[in-house]
């Protein structure tokens, strides 16, 4: 049953050192505030999974909190490389990073299998590629009717799913509007789910066939306005494309990265503090640029 609580409490209560964590969101609704809170609380030895480990995981990796990454595309969308991810893989800084690498289809199907209570998923994929040589979690399976050879991947069953959504009602039912990614699957496949939302409302106003996650599949709901920034929340705010570009500079060197984290993440108490600082700095910047 969903309990409303501050984000810091949700992370402290539901995320433990060594957990496998999936923070999903497909460009839209990426739970950045929750990622920042993991850094503030210095959660250790995490296995993190995500189709598109973008800035949110670049930060966790750069801070050395991640032991293993399960993923399918690790870049800064529309900008280029994730420098902290590359530094970890290429130079083992700040530590070596174990990789389990899939395709998008493999990840999506593994999440579906997790949500479906199945131990594995079947897809037509990976054939002829080098990916199975480096990922023992990609196997072949035969169709018992046609004999066709297909790929099998084990289900993703993370300890904790973290997603961001637009609204929760008083009972903790959650509404997702717009691009929905794999959020339903990761919540239903996880042992515990934390959902940050833009706001708590009396009535979701959800039509038929809207994407609603009922309160009883969620452990904690946290009201965190702008909780997806610099990603976007349809109906609330746009993607901060400029910050994705800035991240390329911030994250390029270890020093500038650590300075930014010290300033914006460990140097702020919570997401409201982060947003206040961020907005102040960026309105200054715009003024100085103007």
């Amino acid at each position: 049953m969903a309990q409303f609580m501050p984000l810091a409490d949700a992370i402290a209560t539901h995320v433990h050192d060594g957990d496998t964590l999936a923070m999903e969101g497909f460009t839209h609704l990426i739970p950045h505030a929750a990622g920042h809170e993991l850094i503030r609380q210095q959660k250790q030895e995490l296995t993190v999974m995500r189709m598109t480990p973008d800035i949110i995981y670049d930060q966790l990796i750069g801070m050395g909190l991640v032991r293993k990454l399960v993923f399918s595309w690790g870049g800064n969308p529309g900008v280029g490389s994730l420098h902290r991810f590359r530094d970890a893989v290429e130079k083992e800084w700040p530590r070596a990073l174990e990789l389990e690498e899939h395709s998008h289809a493999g990840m999506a199907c593994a999440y579906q299998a997790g949500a479906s209570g199945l131990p594995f998923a079947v897809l037509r994929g990976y054939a002829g590629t080098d990916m199975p040589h480096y990922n023992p979690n990609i196997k072949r399976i035969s169709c018992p009717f046609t004999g066709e050879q297909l790929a099998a991947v084990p289900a993703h069953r993370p300890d904790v799913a973290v997603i961001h959504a637009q609204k929760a009602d008083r009972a903790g039912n959650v509404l997702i509007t717009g691009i929905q990614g794999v959020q339903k699957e990761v919540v239903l496949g996880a042992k515990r789910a934390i959902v940050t939302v833009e706001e708590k409302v009396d009535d979701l106003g959800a039509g038929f066939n809207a994407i609603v996650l009922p309160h009883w599949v969620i452990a904690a709901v946290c009201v965190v306005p702008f909780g997806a920034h610099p990603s976007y929340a349809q109906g609330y705010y746009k993607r901060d494309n400029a910050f994705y570009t800035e991240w390329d500079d911030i994250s390029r060197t270890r020093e500038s990265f650590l300075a930014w984290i010290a300033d914006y993440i460990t140097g702020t108490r919570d997401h409201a503090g982060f947003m206040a600082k961020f907005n102040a700095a960026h309105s200054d910047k715009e003024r100085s640029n103007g």
Partner: protein
Amino acid sequence: MADDTKAGYTRDELMIVEAARQLRSGQSCFVGIGMPSLAANLARLTHASEIILIYESGTIGAKPAVLPLSIGDQELAETADAVVSVPEIFTYWLQGGRINIGFLGAAQIDRYANINTTVIGGDGYHHPKVRLPGAGGAPEIATSCGEVFILLRQNSKSFVDKLDFITSVGHLDGGNARQRIGMPGRGPTRIITDLGILEPHPESRELMLTRIHPGVTVDEVLAATGWPLKVSEHLQQTEPPSQHYLDVMRDLQQRTAKAHAGGR
């Protein structure tokens, strides 16, 4: 980047226009961000108004007024005929055989149009010199789309004799290799570069230069290819881009830059 030519367009512009010209109304087209998205939207805004653009974020039939910066921009969701989940887009739509054309880019490509977007150099997969983003949707786009177009600037760093890693399959080691391992799609049917167009030989499936862009020499193409590239006996020259296509493309790019500049 290619220089401006006297013709009044860059080689990159010619590459994009040429890619757009390959598309037809009514086709369903799985599009990534960047050049493929530009080419597909250019086609939509010119001769192929009824082309169906599908992005892996689950947006089906997107009709963006400006180009998306990410695969899941709200512009895509707001203009789509349907928004479905990411698992659904990969299972029911891509693997389900509903996509005619898949558009891919690459860091490296070999003579059979196999591509690498995973690692380059260093000491193999575990200790690469350059860690690239990885597979994304490419392996299954390469598997399941009716055919695949690859859009890539041509030089000897990207057109290599041997890939450091096979991320997505083109024609494997040639011949009927795709059929042998049960791939439903026809695989890459054309590689559109800033120098010309490469197509697989009908039997061996080895890429051949079949068309060359205006102002480019065959020697230049050969020098930009890391293997002894075969040249078709019937080598043709690409049509220069019409002013209309150039105008529409540049207008789209300007609108896009303007829309995204006021981001914050």
